[in-house]
């Protein structure tokens, strides 16, 4: 079979491109540690969130050294807690669920972005660094007030976080 020289070049370059794309994603997974939003959390009763130990009182709590869990409820048309306050330079795992319809959970301008499905818990872990105020929006149409459904994720300094939590008016 005769293959034109140009075609051989193109075939070789195509294979290299594929290897480069696969290599990039592999690098992302082992280098920066990019992972998927987890769906391993068991299903819960979206109508009984007020009896759920994690979601009856949406909050941020410390679960390890420098590790925090944020239990977030999305409902028409708000996020609870609001704002979500977490300390800087820590690892935060968001557990997000919906009390009514499908919502979105998007920390604006970042890669933290998940669907929020009633009965399911979306789990995503991120590392937060410097103190900063992020916007939080719903990016799945959820009803007449969808466009006003927003919250805040406030990354505050460790000292300020301790002030807030020990002051009793945290969250």
């Amino acid at each position, binding site marked *: 079979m005769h293959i034109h020289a140009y075609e051989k070049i193109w075939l070789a370059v195509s294979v290299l491109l594929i290897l*480069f794309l696969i290599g990039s994603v592999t690098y992302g997974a082992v280098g920066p540690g990019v*992972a*998927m939003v987890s769906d391993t959390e068991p299903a819960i009763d979206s109508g009984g969130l007020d009896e759920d130990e994690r979601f009856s009182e949406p909050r941020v709590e410390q679960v390890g050294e420098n590790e925090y869990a944020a239990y977030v409820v999305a409902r028409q048309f708000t996020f609870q807690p609001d704002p979500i306050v977490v300390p800087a330079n820590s690892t935060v795992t968001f557990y997000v669920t919906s009390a009514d319809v499908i919502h979105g959970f998007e920390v604006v301008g970042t*890669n933290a972005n998940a669907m929020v499905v009633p009965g399911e818990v979306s789990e995503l872990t991120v590392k*937060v660094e410097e103190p900063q105020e992020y916007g939080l929006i719903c990016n799945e149409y959820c009803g007449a007030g969808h466009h006003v459904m927003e919250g805040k994720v406030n990354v505050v300094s460790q000292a300020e976080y301790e002030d807030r939590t020990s002051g009793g008016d945290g969250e």
Partner: protein
Amino acid sequence: MSGDTVSGDTEEFDPIGTLTLIGIYFVILVLSWVYIYYIEFLGRDLVVVG
């Protein structure tokens, strides 16, 4: 040249313009990918790690 080729014309067919065009597309593709993945995606805050 073996006997089953259609004619000698295939050897003279050197579409250098097409090759160049494909080369340019390829470079655009690679640069776009580098930009989208390494700069826009990995460069943003709050990379999901678990």
